């Protein structure tokens, strides 16, 4: 497989996953802020700020908008073409990548992506948002899910597929860590206690952003406890959006591509050493360890290590594109 194609398909996958997670995060938070009986104005303000912080796009946001309001954040994260990480920009980038690897992905995958792109381009998506944000996010999520389903059902599960999977899971691990991190940036109103109503609502929103509420409840029978939510999203072995699950899947695809056995432990491939090490840490870390380090610092560390893995993947398979 051509190195350029591998790189293109890896990023195609990351962009789609990024678009999907942006939609998830905004959907849940938008609904949360509508709950006016619990949340006052000052609080909603903080809420939107925390989203921008967690995306690490604060500087760009401040250049483009006079202040942090719900409308501005939604515009910035959903539709802003100057924001390379907005849903619209991610879809444009994903489609452009798809266009250059059409010989590798199935026609159905391209058409699904193209339909979503055309709906943004024609203003249809924006109209849908104005008439119902709920419908818009549902449409965006479904569109991304449809893409993943079509990919699974129509694309050969060969090397290209493994690059697609690596992109998806690496991006998803990163996004889950950021969604979890939002909770760090949200300050509780002064009069509120940890474990109080608002705290619980916030943790529930975090879970919901990852479609994790239902599996979580099955596992813990209803109790929304902060450390349990964090543990679930970091360490759960079977929930497909937990960081550990994502890194395990990434590690699997990596070994599929190199053909090296996971039990080899010689680590001739640096990317495999890094992903194996992160997977081991995620498997053996306790929540006590996490809170001793500090949740935010811990998640920050994970994001950094995911970045290193991504660089190592490029180095291993695509480095000579630069020569």
């Amino acid at each position, binding site marked *: 497989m051509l190195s350029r194609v591998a790189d293109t398909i890896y990023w195609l996958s990351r962009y789609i996953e990024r678009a999907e997670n942006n939609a998830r995060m905004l959907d849940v938070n938008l609904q949360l802020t509508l709950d006016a009986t619990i949340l006052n104005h000052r609080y909603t303000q903080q809420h939107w700020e925390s989203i921008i912080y967690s995306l690490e796009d604060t500087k760009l946001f401040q250049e483009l908008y006079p202040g942090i309001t719900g409308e501005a954040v939604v515009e910035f994260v959903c539709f802003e073409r100057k924001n390379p990480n907005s849903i619209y920009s991610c879809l444009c980038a994903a489609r452009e990548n798809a*266009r250059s690897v059409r010989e590798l992905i199935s026609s159905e995958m391209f058409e699904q992506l193209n339909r979503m792109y055309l709906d943004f381009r024609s203003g249809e998506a924006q109209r849908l948002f104005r008439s119902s944000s709920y419908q818009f996010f549902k449409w965006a999520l479904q569109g991304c899910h449809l893409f993943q389903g079509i990919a699974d059902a129509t694309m050969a599960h060969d090397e290209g597929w493994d690059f697609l999977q690596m992109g998806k899971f690496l991006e998803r691990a990163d996004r889950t860590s950021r969604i979890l991190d939002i909770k760090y940036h949200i300050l509780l109103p002064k009069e509120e206690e940890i474990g109080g109503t608002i705290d619980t609502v916030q943790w529930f929103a975090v879970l919901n952003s990852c479609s994790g509420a239902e599996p979580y409840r099955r596992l813990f029978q209803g109790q929304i406890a902060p450390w349990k939510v964090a543990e679930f999203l970091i360490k759960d072995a079977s929930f497909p959006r937990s960081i550990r699950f994502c890194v395990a899947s990434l590690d699997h695809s990596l070994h599929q591509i190199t053909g090296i056995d996971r039990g080899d432990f010689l680590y001739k491939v640096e990317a495999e050493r890094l992903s194996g090490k992160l997977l081991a840490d995620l498997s053996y870390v306790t929540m006590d360890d996490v809170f001793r380090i500090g949740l935010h610092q811990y998640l920050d560390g994970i994001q950094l290590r995911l970045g290193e893995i991504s660089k190592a993947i490029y180095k291993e398979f695509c480095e000579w594109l630069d020569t």
Partner: protein
Amino acid sequence: MGNLFHGYDPSRFFDEMFASPSEVRAHYQRLFERYNDLTLGEFDRKRLVADNSFLTQGITFTVYNDTEGTERIFPFDLVPRIIPLKEWLHIESGLTQRISALNLFLRDIYHDQRILKDGVIPAEIIHSAIHFRPEFMGVNVPKDIYIHICGTDLVRDHDGNYLVLEDNGRCPSGVSYLLENRQTMKRVFPNLFSRYSVQPVDRYCEELLNLLRFIAPGGNPEPTVVLLTPGIYNSAYFEHSFLARSMGIEIVVGADMVVQGGYLMMKTTKGLKRVDVVYRRIDDDFLDPQVFRKDSLLGVPGLVEVYRRGNVSLANSIGTGVADDKVTYHFVPKMIRYYLDQDPILSNVPTYLSMFDDDRKYILEHLPELVVKSANESGGYGMLIGPHATSEEIAKFRDLIAKNPRNYIGQPVVQLSRSPSYISGRFEGRHIDLRPYILFGEKTTIIPGGLTRVALRKDSLVVNSSQGGGSKDTWVLSE
């Protein structure tokens, strides 16, 4: 009962469908019955289905000089062009003859130049042709084939005779539209196909791949074949991607490849892999910055040397542009007589060369009646259509011809045949041409029909997509 044909006027032109306002040609009769049944609403729905299918599949071309990178669909007209079998057999034999002569000509030009020495073609024409590549004199190309893939444009005059307007022997494009047009027509008018026996077109990509494998260096039975594209911003990128997908080969850009140890290699996730055959969709000028344009980033440094040594095959070969120069075109009937000792089956449009004094005098005296073309431009650019031109445009061409007589030809205006086309609410006659695609390998294969292009602007004779042209499905009947 619809009336989309109501008031249809074939006028003074040769109309593909109507022999007179009241007489439908026999091979269009069943189509006429079906289309005459349609209401405007039904027809509009079918148009919408067709357009949406092109759009969602991304069958678009990029509009240059547009900062938004706008992609448009190539307008598709739902009235097909039908060619009876007998007419097609005539076209097919004429094109086979022509491509054979063109390849013999190129082999000769890059070796002994007998045709120049024998005085059949003035040597100065070849030596002044901008696409002549003297660097390639004496180089042997695989199987002596220069033009593997050719798109020859045909028009019909007011008597319905098929004439050759030009040969495209470098990187002819458009075949993907032909194939997609057929798919779309089948979706939109499934029942119509059961009323006609239409020759299929879908073997094109298989035949193209056979051809590319046939020319592999050293007769390698399992060659690695790639398609070289300038990239996704090229206006024909959809086609490049479509062809690569249909053949199951890699589509590459220059940066994906490197020359190492005398071979062309591509950069893969598992290391460097040898490439045997390149179906290149970039012009000679951009192929190799070491030989041609130094500023080209689209090609591969050293590629030409690998080709010279016979370690990689290219389709089409380098330097074929000398054969589709519009001045050389004038001499193709002579080539056919010279190399094949046959009379040309398909005629050229009569052509005056402004490099010859008598011809130039004639051209300059008759500018308002003639079509004047620059020798090496395409896409409907660099062209004067006398009867439609302003006096400023005519003056401009008078000047251009005087400055560079080698570069211009004059032809009488051919009143291209017309076909009913859908124009806001009804059918009107519009001028069309035909570009068949010819594959010249172990055998000559011509996909039945070709791409019919239609000038959708009223009275326009320019069918290029950049100038408001669209296309139609083309049916060759099998009986």
